[in-house]
């Protein structure tokens, strides 16, 4: 059997999948690209070709820049909180103590909940009239009067980040916990005998084993956080005063609320491009960190 036939056969076997992929992803993608150069409305005319007008208008619009900033803030801060909290919780649950297994099982709960449920729960917690957060803060004396956490442009984004981090830190914690169990016992023992303190042991013994899996978690979470839509849509719909309007929300408003399919498409493509860049950078980082270790 020659190499040519092997290659041909490989393509033939992949053909059905390729056709499906092209029709459900490829076609809409190319149509989105085409749309982004038109002034098409969601309903009605196909629109006329307008060149880069949509892109020019977007890049110069304050709404876009603001949304980009909000998205970046949301992604960076929530992923950072998730990673730090996740690793700390993993280190805690790695210790030997009574009830450890129960806590490990409970850990998965926030992550297992559907985003909608999580979002509604946090709306209850943040509720300005009977929310648990207000009650708690007032009772311990940190707050004088109940506040509207989601209604205040100064606190809404932070409140959202807390809710999102709460939902997603268990994923990081679980991945870290698995990585911790992969650290060979003798290496930890050697570091103890060598006189390394807890911090040095974390830095030189634990971290090398944690870095790879953590990087994967970081990639997944950053990309997900960058295209966040559901939790924000349920909790604030991008408000108040657009203080939580991320790029995905902006795409939705542009394409569906304002029915501007053309400029919505160009915005969607920009978000896609940004995520692709992120993914490529991260994959390169993962390659590098994996190669350095093993």
């Amino acid at each position: 059997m020659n190499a040519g036939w092997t290659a041909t056969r490989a393509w033939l076997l992949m053909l059905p999948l390729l056709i499906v992929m092209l029709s459900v992803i490829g076609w809409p993608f190319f149509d989105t690209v085409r749309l982004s150069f038109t002034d098409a409305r969601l309903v009605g005319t196909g629109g006329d070709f307008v060149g880069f007008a949509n892109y020019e208008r977007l890049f110069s619009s304050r709404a876009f820049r603001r949304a980009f900033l909000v998205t970046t803030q949301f992604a960076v801060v929530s992923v950072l909180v998730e990673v730090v909290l996740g690793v700390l919780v993993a280190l805690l649950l790695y210790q030997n103590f009574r009830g450890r297994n129960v806590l490990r099982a409970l850990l998965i709960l926030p992550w297992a909940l559907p985003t909608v449920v999580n979002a509604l729960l946090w709306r209850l917690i943040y509720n300005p009239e009977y929310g648990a957060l207000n009650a708690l803060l007032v009772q311990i004396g940190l707050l004088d009067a109940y506040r509207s956490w989601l209604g205040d442009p100064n606190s809404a984004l932070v409140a959202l980040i807390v809710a999102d981090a709460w939902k997603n830190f268990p994923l990081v914690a679980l991945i870290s916990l698995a990585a911790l169990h992969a650290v060979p016992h003798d290496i930890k023992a050697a570091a103890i005998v060598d006189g390394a303190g807890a911090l040095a042991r974390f830095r030189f013994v634990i971290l090398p084993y944690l870095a790879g899996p953590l990087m994967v978690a970081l990639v997944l979470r950053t990309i997900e956080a960058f295209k966040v839509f559901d939790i924000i849509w349920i909790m604030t719909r991008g408000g108040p005063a657009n203080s939580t309007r991320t790029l995905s929300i902006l795409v939705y408003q542009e394409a569906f609320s304002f029915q501007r399919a053309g400029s919505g498409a160009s915005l969607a493509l920009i978000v896609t491009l940004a995520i692709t860049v992120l993914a490529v950078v991260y994959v390169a980082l993962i390659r590098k960190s994996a190669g350095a270790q093993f």
Partner: protein
Amino acid sequence: MSTLDLIGVSKSFGRTEVLKTIDISLASGEFLVLLGASGCGKSTIMNIIAGLLSPTSGEIRIDGKRINEVHPKNRDIAMVFQSYALYPNLTVERNIGFGLEMRGVPKTERQAAVLKVARILKIDGMLGRKPAELSGGQRQRVAIGRALVREPKIFLFDEPLSNLDAKLRMEMRAELKRLHRLLGTTVVYVTHDQIEAMTLATRIAVMRDGRIDQIGTPEEIYDRPATAFVAEFVGAPPMNMINAILDANGLRLEESGQRVALTIGADAPREVILGLRPEDLHLADASEEHAIAATVDFAEPTGPTLIVFARHGGNPLVASLPPHLQIAPDSQIRLTFSRKNMHIFDRASGNRIQT
């Protein structure tokens, strides 16, 4: 230069008792080799001395001071782990110098110390590499280097040479012996290799199932094994064990009924084991009365000796004979031995009967 004492040390994991009242007392500068089958508790003893495990009961003392509660890093002990336990993302140089780095030794001093040790271990050409870029033997030497560089009170070596080839192993063995003589540090050393044990040890502890069967100099262990287990475990090929009955007139071999007159005896007949080392057996002249008759299975020339595998009735019998003898399979031979080389053990308890 430190003394080390283990007093009534035991260790259980849950309900399994892994160590049962271990007593070891080492003078300063001693080289103790722990010898024993896999799983008998050697690594567990090492971990208890290092402080990585705490004993269920008993006391550990360095220089006479109880250290049970002292943190491992303050015990001033260096350990070579059975699995090397190198830090995967640090270079060889930093791996070796890690203990010094953690103890705040300045960089230039550290580098000099690392280089010195690396030269001795012949790994000075690979100081910039990561452990993943080393062979098993090289990794093992890095692990040894990490201990040597520290100049601690006590060295713990858990099978440090097990992954080296024969030649390197011999070189490293000689090197460790030389270093021990030079530094005079107290050492506890685990090995499965009897030659390593015999050549390095000032004393050997032979362990079985979490107990020490015998602790003594290599000569004592070899010449006067305290139990049948020690007798069989130390020596290659292992000691021949022949079932016999000890009575008022001496020994009677169970297989053949042949008698061996002895100065000691037993009032009531007693089931014993007669132990004879292969190298203590010789071909008997026709005139010799006290010889064991055996049928040859096969013979293996090893160079300096001819190892003859034979049977005395149902009892296997191995003899180390001079080379170049012509001994054909299925031929009959008669083997003799000198009384002073006999080892007699009680069959039920396995304990040596004084002869």
